[in-house]
């Protein structure tokens, strides 16, 4: 069996076995939930309720503003006690609806379809839009936007991203094992909505049980085993591995005839189109050396990181970092008082020893960063340009093509903060562009 893959990348320690055999556990909703109005890329949703209102579970409480935005729904029934700015896992304060759970789980009326695959493309897209579904792999891009490429774009491939290449995370893995039928249905629905000619699910071979369970429901879907390598699940890397095509620089996947969606997104789409369920719950992995009982949990959005860590048995040892997402691309948190949102794929608690800051030595030009960069960049050059404040030079070396996978910083023997400086360069280049155009 020849495994497909991309050029470059790294083989970090995966630490997946600590939670990959743990079945998804449904957590009861907490007494109070914090539902941010911004859980996606694009403009914030507008609150449709006010303080004191009672809401039903599944009721739309935030209205999408514009096309690149997403609706927000109540995961439980209860009372709105406040609408105010609360800490958010992106590291800023975000306007959020604070909901007191009445414990009744009274659901709003849901529109279900016995045979969802017979629905038209537009009906599927409408159901996905109404359910407020966004990319659940970490980026949080509204799904209906991805399903609406320009009319003349021809989509040859719909790819479901089952690589889950981030170390530690196992949520997608468990969803594919335990909800294989629904994941396959969601894949078919999304592929139909986009009008794709071929449908592929790419899965790394460290998840053989997921490959086997999905094959039972595959039908006309190709289940393709992928080499275990980070960042196999990077959108561009996945497309390259599975189709040999390259997303053009500064372009989007549809420009090379491909649309990629995440496992959690497909599951949410199946629930939305078949059962009329909005996106109010998601599966996340709570793991890391400092977690007592790492595992995978199905939780209402709005549950705090603190409650999630407690559900996993609390912490042990000296906590260094709490990360939303995985260790390669996740965001370090300043507080555990932030809610799980639609794009939260995991909560990772690392020990102080693991997070000790490094003391960089000079670059010895070993070029390992260039040898692992899946975007074929020379990270050491961009880093140097950024340190010197030469933003034009950083751009010339392709800073904007960086996918921020972190392979360069990971591999650097001098422990330099390569990605950190590349991000700085990207920000500077972007803001210079905005200044010029305004």
């Amino acid at each position, binding site marked *: 069996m020849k495994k497909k893959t991309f050029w470059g990348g790294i083989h970090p320690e995966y630490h997946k076995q600590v939670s990959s055999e743990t079945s998804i556990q449904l957590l009861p909703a907490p007494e109070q939930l914090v539902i941010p109005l911004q859980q996606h890329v694009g403009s914030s949703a507008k609150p449709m309720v006010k303080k004191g209102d009672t809401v039903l579970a599944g009721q739309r409480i935030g209205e999408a503003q514009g096309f690149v935005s997403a609706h927000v729904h109540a995961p439980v029934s209860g009372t709105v006690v406040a609408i105010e700015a609360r800490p958010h896992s992106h590291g800023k304060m975000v306007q959020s609806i604070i909901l007191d759970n009445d414990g009744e789980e009274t659901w709003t009326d849901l529109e279900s379809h016995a045979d969802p695959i017979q629905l038209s493309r537009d009906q599927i897209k409408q159901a996905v839009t109404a359910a407020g579904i966004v990319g659940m792999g970490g980026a949080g891009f509204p799904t209906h936007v991805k399903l609406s490429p320009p009319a003349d774009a021809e989509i040859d491939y719909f790819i479901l991203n089952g690589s889950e290449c981030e170390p530690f995370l196992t949520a997608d893995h468990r969803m594919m094992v335990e909800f294989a039928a629904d994941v396959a249905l969601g894949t078919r629905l999304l592929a139909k909505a986009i009008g794709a000619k071929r449908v592929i699910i790419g899965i790394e071979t460290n998840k053989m049980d997921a490959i086997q369970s999905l094959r039972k429901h595959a039908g006309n879907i190709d289940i393709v085993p992928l080499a275990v390598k980070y960042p196999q699940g990077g959108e561009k890397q996945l497309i390259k591995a599975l189709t040999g095509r390259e997303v053009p620089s500064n372009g989007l996947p549809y420009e090379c005839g491909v649309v990629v969606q995440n496992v959690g997104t497909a599951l949410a789409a199946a629930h939305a189109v078949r059962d009329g369920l909005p996106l109010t719950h998601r599966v996340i992995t709570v793991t890391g050396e400092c977690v007592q009982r790492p595992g995978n949990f199905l939780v209402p959005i709005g549950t705090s990181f603190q409650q999630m860590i407690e559900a996993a048995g609390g912490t042990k040892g000296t906590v260094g970092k*709490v990360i939303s997402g995985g260790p390669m691309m996740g965001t370090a948190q300043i507080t555990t008082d932030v809610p799980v949102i639609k794009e939260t794929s995991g909560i990772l608690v690392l020990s102080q020893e693991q997070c000790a800051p490094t003391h960089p030595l000079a670059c010895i030009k070993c070029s390992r960063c260039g040898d692992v960069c899946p975007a074929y960049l020379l990270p050491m050059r961009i880093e140097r340009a950024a340190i010197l404040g030469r933003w034009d030079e950083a751009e010339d070396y392709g800073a904007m093509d960086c996918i921020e996978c972190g392979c360069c910083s990971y591999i650097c023997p*001098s422990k330099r903060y390569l990605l950190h400086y590349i991000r700085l360069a990207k920000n500077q280049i972007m803001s210079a562009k905005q200044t010029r155009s305004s």
Partner: protein
Amino acid sequence: MEQQQLILASSPHVRDTDSTQKIMLTVVVALLPVWGASIYFFGLDAVRLVLWAAAAAVVAEAIFQRLRGKPSSTHDGSALVTGMLLGLSVPPTLPSWMVVLGAIVAIGLGKQVFGGLGHNPFNPALVGRAFLTTSFAVPMTTWARPFDGISGATPLALGSGVVPYSDLFFGSIAGSLGETSVLAILLAGIFMFYRGVLDFRMPLGFLATTIGLMFVLGHDPLFHIMSGSIMFAAVFMVTCMVTTPVTRRGRVIYGIGVGIIVTVIRLWGNLPEGVTFAILLMNAATPLINRWTRPRIFGQGVTLDA
């Protein structure tokens, strides 16, 4: 969990376990069989010169860092590597004070004036060697036979066909301390390759070019690559990370360039050996090679009708 101070830093949050110190240590370990062979062939002179060179390089590093007001950097191991390389690339009869002076020049002029580790455009050990070769031409070209120490000519001076290949391979010939035993050098090279600190592109480009050119020009390629410093340089000098191109294509071109210059100097030049200056010249060309060989960025120049 009691609210404790959480560490905030940007991703990635995990790092590989390899480090620059470990890379330097790997080179030191790789040099041990080479040093061992030189002790076997040349006795205590090999101990004396390598220890003096290594000690002088490390002390010079410490002093220059302090003069520049920078923290001590001797723990990164790079000065130790430079000193050992220099010590192993001089003749066994060289007076100790000369190799000490060479080590000071290597670290001072070859490395520290540019800003220390990672900033030197030229290979420091070769800067030291070039300094010694040009300053002390006679002691630097006075060779001793292995075991008995009687002065004798190197195989390169004698010409091909005089010394059997087996002597060239095992190293029982006159020459610089660490450069005679092809066997020990190959062991070191394999170890470094296995440990991921040696990029095969540079030695491959270098050796293939030298062999090809020598063959085409009617010389014995096997004799040439096994005599003089070619094998030693192929494993330890052209693979120097700091002074060679960062692009993959560039590293091949760099190796080819060294091969061409070595061949030209050996066949037509006035020097006994061309490797030192061939590498220093290609070091100078490295920034240009880097600029010419930038890799295609993912997604650039793709045709959409795939």
